[in-house]
């Protein structure tokens, strides 16, 4: 990434990856590549006329996984909102600082099953619970607001896609793979401005399958997650797993003992704090010993 930032990247801002060299090592390399990487072969061929068995491909980094997420109890997958369960990529914890290839599949199968079982158990024990109608009315009002801001096909007010695109670009540039304090502080400023625009985006049309409207609603969540990522990344003054800080290039043992926890304060602002990582239970320690 630093090489690319310094202008030594490939024409589209990536690097060249060459796997065709395998042909010097094994006979029938082209067939081998096609067998091992069928989708990649097919996609490069169809979308870029590039034969990866013969020539280098241009590649660039992209978001692959969110390591953070909703904080849940490790056994039941319940969040600190009673009766709200989370599992899979939206839940935090299982993958530590860097998810290893293939581990998401096992995560979603194991913890999806657990979340479902504990949710069913919870409902059996607690019943359906109380619904607060005021909260529902408020949620309905808020979700319909974008329709009432005077947007028309010809303009009138800013739509959601422009804000979403700017958010994507800014997060990629300033809170991407190589991070520095200075850039992330700039991102926080940028997020402040984007929050204002988010609260004003307007949509038109009706409510049936209206992607503009959905994006206007999603935007609030995208903003919240982006802000949580940025604030947590500023807080973690070390490099660990997929979090790489150019201004703190090494691991710091003290940070290795804490999780970064983000929560909403009474005034609605985002609070960041450190909490000790839970101690590993004896039976899990034993499994790790056995696997060594």
């Amino acid at each position, binding site marked *: 990434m630093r090489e690319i930032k310094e202008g030594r990247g490939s024409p589209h801002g990536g690097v060249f990856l060459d796997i065709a060299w395998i042909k010097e090592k094994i006979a029938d390399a082209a067939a081998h590549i096609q067998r091992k990487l069928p989708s990649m072969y097919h996609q490069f061929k169809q*979308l*870029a006329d590039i034969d990866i068995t013969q020539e280098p491909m241009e590649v660039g980094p992209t978001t692959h996984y969110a390591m953070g997420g909703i904080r849940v109890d490790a056994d039941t997958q319940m969040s600190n909102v009673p009766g709200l369960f989370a599992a899979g990529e939206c839940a935090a914890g299982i993958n530590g600082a860097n998810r290893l290839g293939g581990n998401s599949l096992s995560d979603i199968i194991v913890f999806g099953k657990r979340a479902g079982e504990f949710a069913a158990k919870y409902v059996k024990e607690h019943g359906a619970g109380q619904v607060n109608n005021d909260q529902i009315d408020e949620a309905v009002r808020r979700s319909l607001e974008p329709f009432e801001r005077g947007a028309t096909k010809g303009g009138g007010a800013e739509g959601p896609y422009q804000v979403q695109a700017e958010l994507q670009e800014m997060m990629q540039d300033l809170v991407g793979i190589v991070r520095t304090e200075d850039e992330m502080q700039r991102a926080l400023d940028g997020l402040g401005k984007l929050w204002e625009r988010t609260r004003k985006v307007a949509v038109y049309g009706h409510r049936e399958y*209206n992607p503009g409207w959905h994006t206007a609603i999603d935007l609030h969540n995208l903003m919240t997650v982006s802000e949580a990522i940025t604030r947590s990344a500023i807080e973690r003054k070390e490099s660990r797993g997929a979090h790489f800080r150019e201004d703190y290039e090494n691991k710091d043992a003290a940070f290795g003992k804490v999780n970064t926890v983000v929560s909403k304060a009474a005034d609605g602002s985002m609070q960041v704090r450190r909490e000790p990582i839970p101690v590993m239970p004896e039976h899990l320690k034993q499994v790790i010993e056995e696997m060594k």
Partner: protein
Amino acid sequence: MNTATFSIFRGDSNGGKFEDYTTEVSEGMVVLDAVHGIQSAQANDLACRWNCKAGKCGSCSAEINGMPKLMCMTRLNSLPLDKPVTIEPIKAFPHVRDLVTDVSWNFAAKMKIKKFKPRPPDAPDGSWRMAQGDIDRVQEYRKCIECFLCQDVCHVLREHNKHDEFIGPRLLVYTAALEMHPLDTEDRLQDLKNAHGIGYCNITKCCTKVCPEDITITDNAIIPLKERVVDEFYDPLKRLLRLLRPKPKPENDHV
């Protein structure tokens, strides 16, 4: 920057019409990029389904210049851009809005196909032994991304609306994957003949032509299934045997 015009079907249950949108196009773009560009700048409420932009999720099926295709895998340089490119929803299923159709019938129909039923494990640790050659055969069927483009072009569904009597090429591919699995013990031939309506397929091969995963739907899935059905029900010797001796059930029944 070059521009191109896209004539996109806009409408819902109250009817609809094609509307023209002109947008910027550049090297390497696919139809889905253009649709997103139009959605972002000119038509926020343009409904379309998509997810992976990589030909893997099967969400973005549409008819582009009349041909059933994945929007994310159709490059603009494969289309004549001197006249409007038409984009319309697939036709074999109920229309929801703009480019979106309700494909849920496919999942409901899939539920009616008898599930995988492996023979008892071969080893005490609960595992099985299969020959590589036997398992290779079903890999082709498993490439299916459920884009339902094959269902869209099949005249039995598209023109004759036989959704209640015929499961369509996609689900025949799925049934073939189960039937030809070396461990499977279930018998789906009766269902194929009756409930799944395999006889409706008259091997026009339209489905094979549009499959973005290049699955040889007709030759490798449907015809072998048809042969099995014929062997089972129309072979006089088999018929006699079946009368005398019902198909033995495997002892271990759990899945």
